[in-house]
């Protein structure tokens, strides 16, 4: 800050150190803004790889369900709790709104889609003690994948779950399905194939159906229906999961208030009726479904338009309907009944209770007697748990035969014990999490949670001691148990709210502060440019002219249009083509200008005809992206169909890159010849030339077309890429030696700058080319041609009086074009702003084994090589090529500084708009699929650009 202030105050040009300080302070501002914003926006959670074990329960202070010393082989007795349910049927209806299930009398107006699932109303009113409707509250993000993860792990999945699986969606955390499999339960799955991606090896039998096509309402559902009823009669499973997608798809296509939606709901009503019939027909003692529980549930809700993903009430409110087929002798304890009741249209009394979706995993585990998933932070729900309450009350009574113990007391005692285990497990998770994760909870919150747990535990030790003392009498008194339950509930609730604030809620304050700092940095940037303009005006009267040129206006329009386009998800998907459209527009305008002035015609034409090639390669990259992207629908016919298997085409793809490499090498060779360059820099460039030869040999070795002699076969492996990296490192160190030791003595600034730029670019080029593979030299060639055209076309803007114009107005258009070209290069080299857009293969060129830092560096170079490294280090060409001989050094340095400031500003403006966009769209359906990855790429790019601009200012500015 001080530097900028001093820079502002002084009327003179401070030289290299001043420029460096300015760039450094801008970088610090950007980093600060990004850091704050990211802390508020990108919620991260570390996935732990610990799994709960059956025997862990003996470490807890609670009563185990069976004695440790008695034979452990009897698994049927359960693991952490006594199993209350033998078999479980889960029917998952995707995007089930709560008002699909609840009677319409709960709402002011009856809508056409309500009261369609009549079978649920009937069951809930007929058997209030065994069947119950729950309003299930999900946590955002309400997308199916995250919700399935949340349902099974009992945690709160975030956008970035830092874990071992990088890319593959399989769940590596402890989860319900894993516990089922570990404890010998057999799981059958049918429906949405997302389950198979999440749990690739868990199911005994699975009937997956493709969920990809949103317009297909029936494939998944029909597949489920076909398999569901026959499976119900079979004995070879313990847990059945049927995932129906029709409602979700109908919502996406037609909306909630539509006839396909109502047809779907009516269809589901029929299916549920049949399922219940089958289950009830076999529910008498000794039958197949004697001890079965049916759960009909949604994973999330949807808005009336069928969207989901955000956190609005319509999206998070879904439903769980639970039906226990074992009739308990008495009704569940009324003490825990928090339900709301209403008469429905037929005058039946229907009640519903609330449950957090977070609690699902742990409650189901408790019902089945499984260990609770390690990362679960849920709370065993009393009402869902109570539905199966009668089953073990009976058992216990038979064992103890103690009349003094009322059933309620018995139930309470069990429930308290379950909650004790539950609290112990959650506390263990919180402790392990805060010791292992990178960004844990704050100490204050942890202390508070620990205090609550300590209180509850103290209470527990008192009550359990008393129970041991009074072995033969009623062990718990009701008030004591109630206090105990409250203590545990308080602890679990505080953990859940702590976790929610850390993992699901955006910190708007931090985001706002970050955004404001970003805006401030933009203002500072703009004023620095203005300031430099004025300074420049002092030095040379000719360049102070502040006429708003057409180039300046158009550059502003182009930058702002591109920035504003980020506010729409479609334009983010098509970002590459938008950039090429804008670049093409500038090129066409320049062509027109060239025709008008009758000069530079060839360059303008070349530039114009370079762009379609860039665009076609962008479209090819989009084709690749469309394969894996849910959002981008690309018409494969849009790009010219090429039969890639033909022999001719194969040899073309082998030959052309090497030819391009030779051309690039030749151009580099010619350029050293042109300029008389001194010592070290010359060797650096020669080093790159030899690297090019090595690359050519490497590719020739790896190609199948040539039958190489045996000698060269040995080079096929990792040797050549490693040599190239090593040479690159040596070259960079030489360059820094030049920077540190050799002081500028040459008079000819232009020539020395060009040589320096060439040296840096050639140093990077060999590494970048080898990383980006066959497309590398072609892209370098395209970049060279594009850059050369932009530089040549700058002449068009020069004043007709042929005076040297040096203000920011002069550089605005070329710098904008330069940055647009950089954006085009990013997309046309096969990248896109998503994590599957990273070319992971590039990270393993030259290496077989994984090393995080090394591979991350290679991946960064590959990703940002063409879009950041080349354009930024090559930017001085813009100044140097137009710098007339024998002008003063100062002016040159100022121009250079100006160009870098402008480039930085253009990058920063688009990043600011991306930040604005993710702030506005933070509850958008695609926020995690599209906006957040775009944000991450942009932010990383901005910081990289800032770093490189700082380095360049040190290196180039004299």
């Amino acid at each position, binding site marked *: 800050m001080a530097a900028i202030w001093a820079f502002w105050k002084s009327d003179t040009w401070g030289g290299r150190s001043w420029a460096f300080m300015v760039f450094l302070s801008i970088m610090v501002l950007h980093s600060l803004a990004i850091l704050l914003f990211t802390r508020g926006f990108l919620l991260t959670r570390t996935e732990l790889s610990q799994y709960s074990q059956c025997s862990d329960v003996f470490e807890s202070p609670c009563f185990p369900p069976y004695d440790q010393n008695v034979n452990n082989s009897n698994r049927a007795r359960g693991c952490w709790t006594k199993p209350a349910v033998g078999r479980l049927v889960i029917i998952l209806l995707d995007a089930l709104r709560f008002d699909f299930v609840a009677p319409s009398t709960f709402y002011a107006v009856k809508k056409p889609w309500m009261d369609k699932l009549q079978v649920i109303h009937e069951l809930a009113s007929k058997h209030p003690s065994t069947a119950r409707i729950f309003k299930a509250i999900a946590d955002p993000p309400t997308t199916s994948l995250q919700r399935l993860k949340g349902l099974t792990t009992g945690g709160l999945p975030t956008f970035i779950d830092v874990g071992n699986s990088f890319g593959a969606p399989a769940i590596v955390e402890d989860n319900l399905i894993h516990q089922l499999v570990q404890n010998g339960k057999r799981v059958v799955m049918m429906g949405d194939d997302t389950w198979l991606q999440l749990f690739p090896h868990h199911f005994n039998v699975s009937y997956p159906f493709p969920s990809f096509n949103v317009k297909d309402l029936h494939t998944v559902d029909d597949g489920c229906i076909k398999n569901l009823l026959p499976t119900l009669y079979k004995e070879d499973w313990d847990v059945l999961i049927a995932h129906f997608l029709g409602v979700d798809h109908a919502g996406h296509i037609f909306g909630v208030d539509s006839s396909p939606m109502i047809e779907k709901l009516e269809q589901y009503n029929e299916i549920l009726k049949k399922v219940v019939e089958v289950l009830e027909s076999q529910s008498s003692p000794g039958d197949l479904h004697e001890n079965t529980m049916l759960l009909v549930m949604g994973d999330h809700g949807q808005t009336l338009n069928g969207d989901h993903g955000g956190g609005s009430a319509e999206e998070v409110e879904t439903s769980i309907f639970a039906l226990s087929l074992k009739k308990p002798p008495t009704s569940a304890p009324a003490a825990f009944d928090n339900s709301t009741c209403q008469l429905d249209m037929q005058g039946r009394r229907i009640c519903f209770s609330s449950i957090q979706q977070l609690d699902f995993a742990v409650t189901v585990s408790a019902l089945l007697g499984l260990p609770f998933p390690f990362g679960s932070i849920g709370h065993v729900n009393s009402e869902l748990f109570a539905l199966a309450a009668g089953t073990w009350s009976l058992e216990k009574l038979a064992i103890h035969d103690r009349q003094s113990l009322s059933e309620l007391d018995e139930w309470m005692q069990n429930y308290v014990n379950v909650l004790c285990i539950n609290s112990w497990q959650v506390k263990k998770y919180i402790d392990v999490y805060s010791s292992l994760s990178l960004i844990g909870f704050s100490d204050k919150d942890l202390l508070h949670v620990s205090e609550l747990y300590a209180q509850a535990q103290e209470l527990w030790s008192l009550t359990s001691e008393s129970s041991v003392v009074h072995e033969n009498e009623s062990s718990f008194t009701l008030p004591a148990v109630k206090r105990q339950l409250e203590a545990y509930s308080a602890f679990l609730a505080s953990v859940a709210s702590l976790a929610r604030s850390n993992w699901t809620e955006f910190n708007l304050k931090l985001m706002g502060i970050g955004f404001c700092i970003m805006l401030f940095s933009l203002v500072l940037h703009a004023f620095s440019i203005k300031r430099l303009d004025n300074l420049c005006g002092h030095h040379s009267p000719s360049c102070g002219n502040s006429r708003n040129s057409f180039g300046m206006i158009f550059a502003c329009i182009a930058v702002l249009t591109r920035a504003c386009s980020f506010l*729409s*998800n*479609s*334009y983010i*998907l*098509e970002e590459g*083509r*938008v950039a*090429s*459209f804008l670049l*093409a*527009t500038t*090129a*066409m305008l320049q062509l*027109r200008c060239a*025709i*008008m002035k009758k000069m530079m015609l060839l360059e303008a034409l070349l530039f*114009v*005809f370079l*762009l*379609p090639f860039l*665009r*076609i390669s962008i479209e090819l990259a989009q084709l690749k992206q469309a394969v894996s992207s849910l*959002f981008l*629908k690309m018409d494969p*016919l*849009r*790009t*010219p*169909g090429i039969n890639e298997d033909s022999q001719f085409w194969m040899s073309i793809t082998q030959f052309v890159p090497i030819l391009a490499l030779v051309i690039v090498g030749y151009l580099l060779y010619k350029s050293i010849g042109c300029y008389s360059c001194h010592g070290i820099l010359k060797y650096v460039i020669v080093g790159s030339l030899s690297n090019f030869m090595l690359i050519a040999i490497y590719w020739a070795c790896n190609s199948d077309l040539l039958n190489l002699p045996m000698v060269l076969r040995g080079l096929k492996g990792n040797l050549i890429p490693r040599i190239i990296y090593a040479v690159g490192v040596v070259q960079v160190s030489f360059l820094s030696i030049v920077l540190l030791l050799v002081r500028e003595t040459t008079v000819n600034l232009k020539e020395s700058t060009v040589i320096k730029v060439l040296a840096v670019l050639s140093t990077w080029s060999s590494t970048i080319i080898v990383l980006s593979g066959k497309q590398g030299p072609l892209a370098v060639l395209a970049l060279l041609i594009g850059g050369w055209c932009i530089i040549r076309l700058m002449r068009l803007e020069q004043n007709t009086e042929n005076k040297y114009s040096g203000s920011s107005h002069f550089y605005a258009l070329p710098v904008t074009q330069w940055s647009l070209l950089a954006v085009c290069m990013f997309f046309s080299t096969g990248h896109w702003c998503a994590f599957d857009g990273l070319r992971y293969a590039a990270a393993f060129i030259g290496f077989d084994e994984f090393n995080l830092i090394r591979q991350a560096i290679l991946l960064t170079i590959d990703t940002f090589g063409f879009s950041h490294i080349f354009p930024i280090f090559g930017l001085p060409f813009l100044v140097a090529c137009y710098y007339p001989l024998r002008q003063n050094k100062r002016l040159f340095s100022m121009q250079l500084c100006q160009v870098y400031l402008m480039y930085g500003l253009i990058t920063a403006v688009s990043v600011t708009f991306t930040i604005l966009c993710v702030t506005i769209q933070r509850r958008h359906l695609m926020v995690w699929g599209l906006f957040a990855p775009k944000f991450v790429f942009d932010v990383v790019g901005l910081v990289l650009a800032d770093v490189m601009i700082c380095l360049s200012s040190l290196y180039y500015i004299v």
Partner: protein
Amino acid sequence: MEEKKKKQQSINPLETKNDPVLCISPAKVLVLHLICGLGLASGFWAAHYFYSINLVSNPAETLRLIWIVEASVVILLYSLFRLNPDKCSYSRAVVGALLGLPAGAIVNALGAIVLGAPVGLQHFRKTVHWSLLMSVFTLVPAASVFGSSWTDWHRIFAQTKPIGPVDYMICLPAHGAVIGAWFGAWPMPLDWERSWQYGTSQLWQSIVRSASRISNTNQSWGRSEELS
């Protein structure tokens, strides 16, 4: 100041030339634009009523119909205003315009491809018809009026320095069409999945064109008032 001077300079030759043909009454300009507009409308109408096709369902066929109708109107009308009627007969101007049609189409097609039109055989017909229509809007009027006079072409399209009502009559609608087509490309990436998004190019084009035509007419009107 400089700009004003330039304007004065550019007006001067008009006065010195004093060519009878160049001085067209605003009424004539209005009628010409009206007929051109009617031609476009009748093209749409014919497509709708006789073939029941439109830009969304059958873009290539509709475009073909429209450009054929509009081309005949434009060529026949604009050839009336040919630059020097003494040396150049009416039929010669028509032939020149007919030759200019495919040439202009090539230029427009190249421009469209540079800006992002799809390249590929299955889109070939659409591109061809679209660029023929654009050619009718942009280069054909100039071809029928100026023939192959390079200086006039250069003046209108490169420098945008029209002199006199005829120049404006050619220059404004042509630029309007290009600018309209440019704006029409913007809604294309939006994922509303409406097929008209690809037809908007035409819509915008006609809007901007008619706007420029109106301004053209107004301008010539204003000028005639000044003169009188």
